[in-house]
């Protein structure tokens, strides 16, 4: 399994290590350049000082006014220098005692700029040399003072000289090695320190993540009302918290629906069984009581019929949902079918003093399964008649529209609210939480919805000014 902490630590370490290596290399190269430059500057300064000691005397001879060179001592790095001076005709003018009979490589320098190079010193050490051309200055006249820089001795040749000064770079190399070792050491220790720091920082940084995970782990079906505090979570986790809260909203809604569904189904299925059970048991307790026995028998029959209806509806719903319900499409006159179905509800409507208004266009033919159409209309009219308040109004309207036949069933309403509308087509949903209406199990509209989907009939329910409940069915026209 991927660990964000491990992934983050490894990536950070990899990149930091690379960065440290590159920075270390850059630092070393820069320092090396600076140190060599300083070394060269010092070497050049020495070479210039040495060149300044070479003077052309009044008699035309060239002299090097150098104090007695001390004999070089081993390990005296600063003093361990070698030089040679040539004239531009190739004649050797002067050589340091340290060279003995050995020679320094003679560079060919055209310009007046000094040239630096590495070389192997006569004693075998690794060294660095500077080569420079110079014009030996004239010896100053005690009477006229120092001559100008470009003054020459008349009647005497004024040769250019080439000076090569070499010095051991042992000290420089040692410094460079120390520098390299220090940078490498730091380069190795730094990632180790960073690894520990990164590990700690990442762990601290991901603590919010751990807290969130622990909070999520506590969630179960009994704590679905819990919501994650957006204000308390880090900005990066805010979208996660929002998504989790949205998810919890949906899960809670689903759980509430599921709980209600299981409570409703328990009530609808267990109550008639309990009734049957109690009726029969009590009848068996009083075998000689004919009235009780007769009552038990008739009630048992009524219960079995009620359960048969319930089971048939459930099976029809299941068949519709699984697509196993066969469709036998026929051309039906919607108005005529409405009248036939209404006939079976008319008596109940009259008993409840309902006022029914008809506005049904003739010859409205629709292509439907006749059984399903009758079931749909029967359920809708039964609901309208039973749920309409006593003395209320029913409105049945059917007319042809563009490519569709519209059926509108409307009844007065004093119980349903806007928030009930999304639940109307859910199985077993009833407005009365006590489910006291024995004639309705809450499956009618679910079945209407399922059959409507099979027939391609669009069904919608709405409340008009909270006083009228309207169900609208849009059938495809037969020739559309």
């Amino acid at each position, binding site marked *: 399994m991927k660990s964000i902490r491990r992934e983050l630590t490894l990536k950070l370490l990899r990149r930091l290590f690379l960065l440290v290596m590159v920075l270390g290399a850059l630092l070393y190269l820069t320092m090396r350049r600076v140190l060599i430059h300083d070394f060269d500057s010092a070497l050049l300064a020495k070479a210039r000082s040495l060149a300044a000691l070479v003077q052309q005397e009044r008699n035309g001879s060239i002299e090097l006014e150098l104090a007695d060179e001390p004999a070089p001592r081993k390990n005296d790095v600063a003093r361990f220098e070698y030089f040679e001076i040539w004239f531009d005709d190739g004649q050797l003018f002067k050589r340091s005692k340290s060279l003995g009979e050995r020679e320094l490589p003679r560079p060919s320098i055209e310009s007046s700029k000094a040239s630096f190079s590495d070389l192997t010193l006569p004693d075998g050490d690794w060294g660095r040399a500077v080569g420079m051309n110079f014009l030996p200055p004239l010896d100053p006249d005690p009477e006229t003072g120092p001559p100008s820089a470009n003054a020459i001795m008349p009647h005497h040749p004024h040769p250019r000289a080439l000076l090569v000064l070499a010095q051991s770079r042992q000290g420089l190399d040692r410094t460079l090695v120390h520098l390299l070792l220090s940078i490498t050491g730091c380069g190795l220790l730094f990632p180790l320190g960073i690894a520990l720091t990164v590990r700690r920082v990442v762990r601290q940084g991901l603590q919010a993540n751990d807290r969130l995970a622990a909070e999520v782990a506590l969630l179960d079906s009994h704590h679905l009302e819990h919501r994650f505090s957006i204000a308390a979570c880090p900005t990066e986790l805010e979208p996660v918290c929002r998504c989790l809260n949205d998810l919890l909203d949906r899960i809670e809604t689903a759980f509430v629906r599921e709980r209600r569904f299981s409570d409703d189904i328990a009530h609808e299925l267990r109550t008639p069984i*309990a009734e*049957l059970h109690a009726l029969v048991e009590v009848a068996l307790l009083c075998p000689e009581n004919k009235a009780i026995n007769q*009552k038990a028998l008739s009630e048992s029959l009524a219960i079995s019929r009620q359960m048969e209806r319930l089971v048939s509806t459930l099976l029809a719903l299941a068949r519709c949902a699984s697509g196993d319900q066969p469709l036998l499409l026929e051309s039906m006159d919607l108005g005529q079918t409405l009248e036939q179905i209404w006939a079976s509800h008319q008596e109940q409507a009259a008993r409840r003093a309902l006022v029914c208004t008809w506005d049904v266009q003739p010859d409205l033919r629709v292509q439907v399964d006749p059984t399903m159409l009758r079931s749909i209309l029967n359920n809708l009219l039964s609901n309208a008649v039973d749920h309409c308040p006593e003395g209320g109004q029913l409105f049945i309207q059917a007319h042809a529209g563009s490519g569709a036949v519209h059926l509108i069933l409307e009844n007065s309403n004093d119980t349903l609210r806007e928030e009930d509308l999304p639940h109307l087509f859910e199985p077993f949903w009833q407005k009365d939480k006590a489910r006291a209406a024995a004639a309705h199990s809450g499956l009618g509209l679910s079945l209407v919805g399922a059959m409507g989907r099979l027939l391609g009939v669009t069904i919608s329910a709405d409340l008009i000014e909270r006083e009228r409940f309207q169900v609208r069915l849009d059938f495809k026209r037969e020739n559309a």
Partner: protein
Amino acid sequence: MRVLLVEDSIRLQEAVGTGLREFGYAVDIAGDGEEGLWYAESNEYDVIVLDLMLPKVDGLTVLTRLREQGKTVHILILTARDKVADRVRGLQMGADDYLIKPFDFMELVARIQALIRRAHGVKSTQLHLAHLAINTTARLVSRQGEPLNLTPREYALLEFLFLHRGEVISRSEIEHHIYDERVEPMSNVVDSAICGLRRKIDLPGAASLIQTRRGMGYILEERVP
């Protein structure tokens, strides 16, 4: 013993009511929570059998309100809700027992009997006094080992006196616990019932186990000669 049945299913009201009456219980029936609350607040019941999904006021609200009023009557919840969470909730809210529909009627009766025993601090189902013995489970009464043939109401009266033996029980208490709202007890109905019961339980020539305390009521106790 008087039982209140709060149940919206008319068939269950009738079946359970009839069955309990056959067992000698006085049974009042309420069809919704509001009515049930009114009955429970107006009368003294030994046990209330309460459905949860009730019109007007749901069963849990009825339960809560009764407990808030300090009513200690034993309440048995009888419902189709079978989830553990529902059972736990019902019991935690103050119910004494929980029975899920569909139920065995004899189990309901047994649970009601157990609640009544619990209400009177009695553990055994066998009660003895002098030559009299009662088996509250089988609802059998015997005198010197011979079974007696009592009507359900006579049995209920005797059981009530047995559970309060040594205590003086007023006529009105007997009326409240033995007769339900369907019976309008006449002024001498309790006296007549006591008289009939004495004839059946007392030994010929011996002092009656049920004694009258003039102006106060009746007491069931063994008379020491």
